[in-house]
């Protein structure tokens, strides 16, 4: 009798796939596999946690609030919204060398850059240098799209309009003399923003591109005059403008203002007294916000953050504890079977 397989056309294929016999790994998560796994994960986490914690501890941070709501604050008189072009000076001292490179941030709290209607209100086409959007801005820019005379606002929108406009100058007081600390404003924005996403119109001089448009309502100067000191840092690729346009995720945020990398301060800010001259412009009282400046140095893991290190330690420890608990459970339920 000859055995001929698969002669009948109706016969199902005898393959591992159709017969559901594919070789399979069964992650039967038995204690036997999980306990060593947990121990390993736990130990690794504790290691990472220690490293993170040490790194974080080594980061120096100096925060200075200059909102000026308190009477004794040097900026108290500037916090009056009616006061124009107010300048206040903040004195502070550093005990030991603030290691460089030092990052100079300004910080805002209770400021909702992530408010949906605020975030929507911008015109990426304009900011890409597309002149067609100069005449007719994106409709989401309302109510910062046209001025009262129906002239288009360039750049339009709420985000642009609310550009942070306090400026800072930092002086080291050396022998009673104010020595200005050079602040490096280059490269504080994202590379992609500066080179790809934002572009000035290819019109020279730049101001010609803005003919027939008006500056945003809150701005003191039009976009092509944002930085009077450096002509290349104007228009939509102004670094401060770029930093502001990258909206913060959370209502308490800081944004990079400058870096201190030049001259005598390449290695950081030496110990001593400093004074910070603040051109106080930005109103924050209406939303109970606070303004501050932050000096910080950064590590491979970013700014100072104790949370991650602690969390890693906690989870790592938990894993180890769990593996012990499981060992007990395992002993209780696995051993009787083997009898």
């Amino acid at each position: 009798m000859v055995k001929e397989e698969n002669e009948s056309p109706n016969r199902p294929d005898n393959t591992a796939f159709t017969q559901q016999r594919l070789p399979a790994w069964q992650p039967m998560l038995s204690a036997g596999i999980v306990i060593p796994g947990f121990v390993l994960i736990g130990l690794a986490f504790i290691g990472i946690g220690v490293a993170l914690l040490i790194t974080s501890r080594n980061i120096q941070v100096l925060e200075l609030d200059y909102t000026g709501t308190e009477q004794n604050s040097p900026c108290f008189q500037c916090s009056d919204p009616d006061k124009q072009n107010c300048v206040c000076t903040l004195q502070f001292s550093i005990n030991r060398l603030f290691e460089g490179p030092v990052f100079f941030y300004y910080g805002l709290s209770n400021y909702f850059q992530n408010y949906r209607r605020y975030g929507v209100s911008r015109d990426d086409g304009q900011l890409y240098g597309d002149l067609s959007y100069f005449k007719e801005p994106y409709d989401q820019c309302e109510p910062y799209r046209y001025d009262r005379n129906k002239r288009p606002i360039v750049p339009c929108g709420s985000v642009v309009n609310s550009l942070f406009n306090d400026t800072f100058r930092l002086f080291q007081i050396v022998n009673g003399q104010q020595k200005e600390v050079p602040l490096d404003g280059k490269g504080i924005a994202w590379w992609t923003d500066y080179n790809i996403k934002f572009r000035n119109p290819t019109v020279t001089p730049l101001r010609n591109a803005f003919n027939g448009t008006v500056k945003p309502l809150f701005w003191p100067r039009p976009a092509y005059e944002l930085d009077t000191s450096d002509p290349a840092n104007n228009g939509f690729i102004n670094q401060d403008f770029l930093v502001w346009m990258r909206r913060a995720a959370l209502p308490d945020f800081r944004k990079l203002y400058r870096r201190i990398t030049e001259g005598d301060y390449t290695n950081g800010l030496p110990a001593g007294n400093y004074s910070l001259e603040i051109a106080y412009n930005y109103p924050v009282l209406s939303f109970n916000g606070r303004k501050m400046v932050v000096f910080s140095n950064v590590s491979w893991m970013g700014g100072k953050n104790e949370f991650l290190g602690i969390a890693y330690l906690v989870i790592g420890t938990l894993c180890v504890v769990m593996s012990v608990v499981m060992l007990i459970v395992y002993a209780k339920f696995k051993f009787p079977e083997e009898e």
Partner: protein
Amino acid sequence: MERHEWMRHQCRKLFVRERDQGAMSTQSSEDSHPPPLKFKAKRTISVGHWPHQQEYRDVAQSYKGNIIHTTKYSLLTFIPMNLFQQFHRAANLYFLFLILLNWVPVVEAFQKEITMIPLLVVLTVIAVKDALEDYRRYLSDKKINNRIVQVYCGKQNAYIGKRWKDVQVGDFIRLSCNDVIPADILLLYSSDPHGICYIETANLDGETNLKQRQMVSGLPLQGVEFNPASCFIRIECENPTNDLCTFRGFIEHYSGACAGLDNMNLLLRSCTIRNTETVVGIVVYAGHETKAMMNNSGPRYKCSHLEKDLNNEILWCVLLLVMMCLTTAIGHGLWLKQFKHTVFLVDEDMPPALAGFYVFWTMIIVLQVMIPISLYVSIEIVKLGQIYFIQNDLDLYNEHAGCRIQCRALNITENLGQIRYLFSDKTGTLTENNMVFRRCSIYGIEYPHVENGCRLEMYEAKENEAAGCSVTLKSACRGKSLSCRSLSCNRSSLSLHTLAAESEEDRQLSNDFLPLTSAFCSRMAKEVIPDPDLVNKLSRLCAPMLLSGDVTFETTSSLELNYITDFFLALAICNTVVVSSPMQSQHSAQSQTLSKSLDGIKLLFQRSSLPLFSALATHSPTRSRGSHGKTDDIFHSRNSYSNGASDNEEDMRNERGAENDTDNELMYEAVSPDEAALVHAAKAYHCTLRGRSADSFLVDLPGIGAMTVRLLHILPFDCNRKRMSVVVRHPLTGQVVVLTKGADSAIMNLLETPKGGEQAQETDIHIREQTQKHVDNYAREGLRTLCIARKVLEEEEYEVWLKGQLLAESNIDNREELLKVSAEKLETNLTLLGTTGILDRLQEDVPETIESLQRAGIKVWVLTGDKQETAVNIAYACKLIHPSDQILTVNCQSKDDCAALLEDLKLEVQCSQERISQKKTAEDHGGLSSGSKVGFILVIDGRTLNWTLEDASNCFLELSHSCKAVICCRSTPLQKSQVVRLIRDKLKVMTLAVGDGANDVSMIQVADVGIGISGQEGMQAVMSSDFAISRFKHLCRLLLVHGHWCFSRLANMMLYFIYKNVMFVNLLFWYQFFCGFSGSVMTNSWVLILFNLFFTSIPPLIYGILDKDIPAEQLMRVSELYQAVHASQASPPFVFWFTVLDAFYQSLVCFFVPYFAYVGSDIGELAFGSPINASALLIILLHQVIESHTLTWIHVFVLVVSAGSYFVFVLLFSVCCLTCSPPTNPVGVEMLQMSQPLFYIVCTLTTVTALMPRLLFRTIHNTMHLSALIQTSLREVE
């Protein structure tokens, strides 16, 4: 003579009509006036020149042509119609609502095109599926429409080939053998001399036995050659209906002759012409108006319970969504209130309440993924995948029949995993329905057919062997036939002499003609090994000359021989078996040269019957007068027939030598398999039915050869009489004989009171007692018994009865009733000849299957139409009843008794159960395990069941609840479905009904899962079923393995889907607390939408199709798992909320770990979302890894591809998308984030923390729960 002809015609008509149960009585006698037509809606078809021909033409315009379109759409209408149909789904409307909502500027959350993506994807997927299905239908339509058929063309006066679609109502169509009928056709001409045409309706209802159709009679059409050119007829018939069994109308010929039309005259579309050379008919209904097309209904839809649960869960999701949106809306209002003239506020004039209201709708759009709408599409895909695997399971493949399981309902796979009650038919379901003649008793003497029994056992062994080594049907058959042949040769050579050897040869050859589908002619039924004693006795008949002179002729009296011959004659002809052969000589009742000994035999026969028919001699002159003398008549008719036959079919052999060939080709096609079994049994004793026509049989008689038996009447089987009879003129004695075959209960009451001489009386009583004893024995063995009886009619008696019968036939109003009365009048004073025991073997592995199912917690009920003894015996045989079980029989005579008895039994059961439990506890204390469990089996008969269902259904339910099994005997189809409905509705459990015959259809349709067994009794059960299997044993694997898998897979997948959506959506929700509840998202909106639609959608599908929580072998071995795992999963509220809680936890971790890691820093909005999304993806995918029970390379591949596609997409997107998708333009975000180590530190911490509880839970659960479950069940098995 004229009168005689008329009678014959009547007989034929009756015969023909009664073969068709549904025939209506519009066909009156052939008088020229048209019969009164009862139908109002009618259609007229006229051919030739008639008055009002123009009017007819106008009417005929409205008749549909024969072109068919089963497609739903055309190229132009596809998009609008498909869209229209798809928007009938609530889910799609929801999507549409979201899109429209997004068009409202104040609530707009995303760009308009992004919100459309989900709907577009869902619509496209479904539309592609629909389009493919429709295209397949289009192709098949095209193929069918372009088939060629011979249509008469008036101009050319010839039949020309036309395409099916060009056929019109009123066309004459000529069909040849094996042609498929293109439209509903009125049969006007058949090449068959009797005007009969055979059709096979397999395409229509799957039944493979041939059915007879009769050409229109009573018209001057029956010429030698039918010529449509001269055929002027007018047909009036009812408008098209979908009733396959009725057709009413009348036909009027130009000559004025009229005739009624009924279903017997109609050839239905898509049937096949068989065994008839040429047929001509006129098209009555065409195309979509044919009965076949009107019966074409779509697939069945049964609601899945799991999907009902799902709807509940989705309602919870909706509630959750609304709550989240409300929270956001209120939060936003409060948040807005605290600000005045703030630099970042955009539209300060808007009142906070209104802003909150807008935010509510914005959030509905943002959180839309909360409602897992894609789940419905996913479930459909997953079920298709599951069905693919069910259909491809080799273990559900029947090697012999070459058929797989058919899944006809596509949406209830998971119901298979929740079955609590199984209702089974007996015959054909538990048993083979392969009726095999096992033994018989004639003249009160039992012939045990020992070798026949051995053969059946051998066959079984062979079959198992064959099933073991996977050989194909053909080779297996050949192998078996060889071995069987040699076996039977060895065994029977002693007793069968040369006859046996000859028949062996026949059998061998006949195998090659065995078609796969001719199930009734299975070898087992065919090869009956005769009992040596009986053969010995019969061989006396073969050599009568020797016998007459033989002095040692004492064992077999001539009376007994007479009984035996008539017994086998009855087996051979008292049936409705159609004899067919590939050579279309099915009813060529030609004779061959008579053997010389015939006269001697006849003499012997008459002499031996003398004691019985003592009155016969005196009446013989009368008889001679009626039929030209009995012997002469036979010879005369045979000779004349022989001449006629040889004229027509000259190539047909008259020689005995050629007989073998015809013998080989004989195929019996019977309506019920036991008829075929009896014919085969008769054949084994060389009493072979060679052919039949409307008024005669051609039968081989042992030792005599072929003889024509004149058929006078058939009194067909009906359920009330439980018997059928044929009235024939006996070939040997020439007397009018009634041969009756029926259930013992029906026959025993109709026997004549013993009369005649004292000795004869004694013999008679003896025979009756012995036979009754044998019948009881057979029933106890589980055999089906049929009693055979006969009655010899005096000519006068026959004449009297004939008058009544003809009167009944010609009556129009209550013809059926009168015929029944007439039949009952005839079937009295019968003489018992003997009884047969037909074996209906259990299917293989039935006891194991039932035991396994019972262990799985499924209650098995048997609902059968058989009688109680047989049912109980089969129940014993298939181990539904164990010897230790207590049987509670409920057979009551009245309603009140019934209720009282049920109450009594309930009490009894309760008492004994208490006793058992007490005993058990005592035993448990003693440390002994209970050895045998006593179960209760309720046996109830049909009549009592009826009362029970009417009044005492609650009592019945309670009683049956405490019984291990219930057997309902003598139940009607309606009762079967009532029982199923009772259990389904009252107990709210999942029910399964399995059956194979038309009587199970209602039960199959009522049950939650209907399973049809494609067996011997046609395809009706299969056509109405959800799943069609070929063997009962397949149920075990279907339920325990596939049912379990499908259920757990689907349940797990649905939970996973909900988990996934809740988890992801909550991330967005938590963010609202930090963005002033303004509906901001920290993710690019494309990523947001695609996250659910693509990046995390394929793994759950694979999970739902391929996951195996427990290996198949274990599921089969430990049936308890079916119940246990189901029970653990049967608390969806708990599992659902547990899953939702876990999702909440995970999303909290997934959001707040990055939050604390980045709080106070200069993190941008999208940069913040980047690690959250990445870790959410990892968590969701790894969660599935934890939940999966098996991981194959497919899983791994899909998981890796899903994760990979996400990262590739976001990276590419962050490079390429320059000004797109404001306000969440992603340029540079991911590039920058992924280049920072903090990203990975955060993702790792988030993922591990989020998954830890689930991992812990799984581990502990697996260690404690599952292993314990498996261990205990294993222990139980041991």
